[in-house]
Structures are given as structure tokens and as C-alpha cells.
């Protein structure tokens, strides 16, 4: 007996494995899918923007502001130290007087 020819359409969908994985997304409603996709790409953009902003702000502050801040802190520390020493040696009166420029 000759084999029967295979039916043209037997109702079974032929899919690759990747297509089946892809189709799992259909378990979520379409609006939820869109919102999640936008949120993830928005979050990634925000992350990239924050990286760039952090770099620009930190290098700009390093060049424009850092040397002045370091020098001001150093000068204030020395002034306070000199004042403290004078106060210890000569009493509270001497600490108020001005002193020579001290580099």
C-alpha cells in the first residue's frame, strides 16, 4: 500500500525555538509591554545622561574651583593654628591681633 501524501495544512504551527521564546511576551497585555519598554529605555538614557553630567561637573569643578578651595582651606587652617598657639602662649588678647602673611 502506498503511503498517503502528507496533508497540506494540519493545523500545527511550525516555529523555531527563538520564535517560541519571543512569543512568550504575548502573555502580558500590550499596554504593559509598551510602558515597560519605554521605562527601560528611559532609565538607560537617564543613566547615560547622569554619567555624562557627573563627568562634566566633576572635571569642571576640578579645574575651576578645586585649587582655590584647597588654598583657602590651607590658609584658614594655618590662621586658626597660629591663633590657637598665640592664645595658648600669650592669653586670649593676642589671638585677636592680626599676624604677618604666612605662606
Amino acid at each position, binding site marked *: 500500500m502506498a503511503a498517503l501524501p502528507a496533508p497540506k495544512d494540519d493545523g500545527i504551527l511550525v516555529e523555531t525555538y527563538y520564535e517560541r521564546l519571543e512569543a512568550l511576551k504575548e502573555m502580558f497585555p500590550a499596554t504593559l509591554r509598551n510602558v515597560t519598554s519605554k521605562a527601560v529605555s528611559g532609565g538607560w538614557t537617564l543613566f547615560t545622561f547622569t554619567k555624562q553630567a557627573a563627568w*562634566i561637573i566633576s572635571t569642571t569643578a576640578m*579645574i*575651576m574651583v578645586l*585649587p*582655590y578651595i584647597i*588654598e*583657602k582651606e590651607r*590658609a584658614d587652617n594655618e590662621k586658626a593654628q597660629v591663633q590657637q598657639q598665640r592664645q595658648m602662649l600669650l592669653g586670649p588678647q593676642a589671638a585677636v591681633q592680626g599676624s604677618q*602673611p604666612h*605662606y
Partner: protein
Amino acid sequence: MSEPPPSVKPTAEALTPSLQPPVNQNPGAYEELHRKCRDVFPMCFEGAKLMVQKGLSSQFQITHTLSISTANTGYRFGATYIGTQDYPGGETFPVLLADTDGSGNTSATILHQFAEKYRVKLQGQVQQGKLAAAQGTFERRGRLSTYGIMLGNTDLINQSGIVVGHLLRRITERLDLGAELVYQYDKRSGQHSALSYAARYTAPNWTLSSTLGTAGVQVLYHHKQHDGLQFGIEFDANLRQAECVTTFAYQAELPESAVTVRASCDTNWTVGAVFEKRLSPTLPFTLAISGLLNHLKGQGKFGVGLIIGA
């Protein structure tokens, strides 16, 4: 008899008129219109620089400059001679300045003032044995106004050169107005001229100055917050190249450590700063570090310099 009330009694102050020296109302040179604001901006440099300044006498000063950088590596020698004629205002004339390097490229300036009103400035530049640029300026500084005329690169053989005439007048105690006409003539390319107007308003704490012409608009604002802090904002619109740049700069000084910081940032995404510090109160060493960063190109240029002598 009762004494007259105190307000009627003549006091010694009211009898003698106040003898104050006349206030100089001259608005200054036209080129110095934006000087107050431009001084706040940092002069960034690249590479290593060593400058030795030595005064040979009270009138003569020598400068040796050694620079190592990608732009130019070499030695420059500078000399300054200041003459003996003193004028009120702290200026002494004549002034001769010259700057030359090892291969003979020289630039020289002579400044002299006659009769406290007329000032002459001659500048020349020689490169590779040929006169590259020469200009002469004649200025009349009157009571309330400054007139000037400048002839640059006048070449009688090729009939080319530049003539600039400018005037700056003090209108009120705070407002100065001026104008400048630049005329350039050349046998090949013909004659071109450009007219521009300038205005400067000076308030006790701030100054607003502006230049408006066919080549572009510049508006500069300078603000002095207190003795150690000054701000400057410059808006520069170049109509020929269709470019606009706004720059913000500040200058901070710490007098007890002899530190000066100048920093600027602008709309071309460029940030620059120069930090100068005197290393010792007795020894004349000054350290200067400079940094320039362009965010768009991601390129930075940094320099360090040491200045010895005043």
C-alpha cells in the same frame, strides 16, 4: 546775651574752600574700554614656562623666558626701559619695550607722551629678517575725551595699509560713548571700511560695556563683589562668522597667601583656569598652573610655570 546757636557759628572748615586735586575725567584709551572685564579672564597656557625678571636699575628691566610646549619651544629675551619724565597718575615716559628670540624675530614698542595730552605709540615686528608688521598710534587725551588715529602696515609701494580712527568721550560721570572707523585699502582687493560704536556705563560696583558694529556685537559685564572676588561675563556675537559665544569668568584673590585664581567657562563647552601662588613671602618665586579643557573634543591642555623675580 545768649550765644548764637551752634549751627550759625562760623567754623574753620566753612571758611576755607576745599582744595582737592582735579579729578581726572579722561575716559582712557579706546582699546582699554573692556579692560576691566577682560582682566578677569584667565590667560591659559600650555607646557612648561620659566620666566626670570631682573631689574638692572630702576629704569631698566630684563626678562628671560624659557618655554617648552607643543606650540613653541624656545627662549625669548625681553627688555624694558622706562624713562624719566613723570606725569601725574603714576605714569612715566618714554617707555621702550622689546622682545626677541634666538632667531632674531623681534617685536618692539615705543611709547611716549608730550605735554600730558598727546601720546605716541610705535610698534614694529620683524620676522625672518623682514618687517612683518608696523603700526603707529597718535592719541590726544583731553579733559573729557580721547581722540586717536592709528596707521598700520602702511606700504607705500603696494599702496596698502590700515587706518583706524577712534574717539571716546565722557558724557556723564558714569557714561562713556565712543566710535571707531577702520579703513583698509589695498591695490588688489580695494577699499573696505567698518564703523563701530562703543558705550561703557560705570557704576560703583559694576561696569557694563558694549561694542556694536558691522562685524559683530560684544557686551561685557564686570561685577566686583568684594575686594577678593570679581566676576565677568562676555557675550560675543560675530556676524561675519555667524558665531556667538558667552563666557563667564571669576577672579578670586587670597591676599594673606598671595594667591590669585582666574577661571572661566563658556558656551563652547570650554573650561579654563589659571592659579598663581607666591611660594614664599621673602623669596620672589611665583608658581603658575593653568588648565584648559574642551568637553566637546575631550581635549585638555595643561601648563605649569615658574616666575622668578617680582
